[in-house]
């Protein structure tokens, strides 16, 4: 039997893009008899923020930086390479504070900075609004790249998120592995969700930032094209196979005849086929 903490945690981690605050309000109302629940599910907020690549504005900055498992420091603070800043992050309120200068220490510093530049160029070509980051990982033997694009339109009852996470070991020949995830939520007089996960594995011939990012850009383009084709295939395939738009006769049902013919018989009930 799951505990209140388990249940509340799963609700938090299941929050759709841009609707965490709404889900928190609902969870608070449903656990009103135990006001300690929200503070006791802090780990769920952290998992949500790191997995969903939450974005946050640093104090005094205009651009948003990403929260992920890759830019977390040992003391629980997070860092941003581009602005050379580390900061505290409140996982429940999603606010940053106490920003300090942070110098990246990595033997791959040059690669990371050129990847940041190339990723930024790619991002500005294809994402009207997004945040991204490049960080050392695996004890500085590998590099992780994350990108997240959000569009929230709660007044029109839809929100969306595109996320990608890539990692590759820094060695002469390498393979980039990762995944792209797209989540869309539409909730006007209903609740419709699109959730996709596409695993990525691309071999890269050289470790130049340009060639890594151009392979990633191609994989993202291919995926978006595959996704667009999948919408058409589902509409023409499974959706049509479920319910026809009109009967094969192209005529609507003649209810008087259907009902009249049947009602003319004795309908005392209990008849099988």
């Amino acid at each position: 039997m799951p505990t209140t903490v388990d249940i509340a945690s799963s609700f938090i981690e299941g929050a759709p893009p841009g609707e965490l605050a709404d889900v928190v309000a609902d969870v608070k109302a449903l656990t009103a008899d135990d006001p300690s629940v929200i503070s006791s599910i802090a780990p769920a907020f952290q998992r949500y923020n790191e997995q969903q690549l939450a974005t946050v504005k640093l104090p005094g900055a205009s651009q948003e930086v990403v929260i992920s498992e890759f830019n977390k420091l040992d003391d629980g603070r997070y860092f941003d390479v581009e602005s050379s800043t580390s900061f505290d992050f409140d996982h429940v309120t999603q606010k940053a504070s106490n920003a300090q200068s942070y110098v990246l220490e990595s033997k791959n510093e040059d690669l990371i900075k050129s990847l940041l530049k190339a990723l930024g160029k790619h991002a500005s070509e294809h994402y009207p609004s997004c945040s991204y980051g490049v960080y050392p990982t695996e004890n500085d033997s590998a590099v992780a790249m994350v990108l997240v694009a959000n569009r929230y339109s709660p007044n029109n009852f839809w929100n969306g998120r595109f996320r990608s996470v890539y990692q590759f070991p820094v060695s002469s020949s390498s393979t980039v592995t990762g995944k792209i995830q797209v989540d869309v939520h539409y909730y006007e007089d209903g609740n419709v969700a699109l959730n996709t996960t596409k695993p990525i594995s691309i071999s890269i011939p050289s470790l130049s930032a340009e060639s890594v990012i151009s392979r990633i850009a191609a994989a993202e383009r291919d995926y978006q094209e595959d996704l667009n084709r999948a919408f058409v295939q589902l509409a023409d395939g499974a959706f049509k196979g479920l319910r026809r738009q009109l009967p094969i006769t192209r005529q609507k049902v003649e209810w008087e005849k259907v009902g009249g013919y049947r009602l003319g018989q004795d309908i005392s009930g209990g008849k099988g086929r």
Partner: protein
Amino acid sequence: MADAQFDSALDLLRRLNPRDTKQNLQAITSLVPDLTEDLLASVDQPLEVRRCAKTNRDYLLCDYNRDGDSYRSPWSNEFDPPIEDGTVPSERVRKLEVAANEAFDVYRELYYEGGTGSVYFWDLDDGFAGVVLLKKGVTPGSKSSGAWDSIHVFEATDRARMSHYKLTSTVILHLASESSSLGELDLSGNMTRQVEADLPVESDASHVANVGRLVEDMELKMRNLLQEVYFGKAKDVVGELRSLASLSETNRDRATHREMIMSMQR
């Protein structure tokens, strides 16, 4: 307090993944057991199928043909597991229910070309009410699958030579696709719409035709709506998140276009 919690529960179910509504509903009711009855009555879930032991035909289960732990078959009018004094419709309304089941069986064959359907009616003080259920699943290949559940609840209130119908319809549509190039895709959800109408009633047979037409029109409208949201809106939002075309080229083209219009206006 209870009202506020009920609203929060509905809001939460409208936000969390619709694929997991059943588990989330269970989780909410384990947090607040008092909400169980009200939530079960107002949250639509994919319909379960049961075989009628007497007629060997499948029927659909919902809150409206349930009495305790037993469900009434529309084909035999009997409860499974059997119970004494289970709630059944009056003789007149049962006759209507039988006629509606036969009519919607034709409808189901014409529109769904398979699947399962059930209609349940019950008596009201000034008329009657009912629910029309339709369910179909497809697995056309290993690549994609789909499931459709229609739940149409209506009330028919008697007026002189007329009847006032109030219809609330929910369609639960689940689609999924999987392949090496696409990875995993899940497109699931539910949409609800309402309509009211005053329609002439000459005899009881008119009720079946009136409800039939209302449901038929509603399903056509909802099928179009689902098509628009599932394949239009979802794709558009993805396109707003990520642009296939290069944004700098798109912006350049727009600027050129603007200049052209300006020069023509001069």
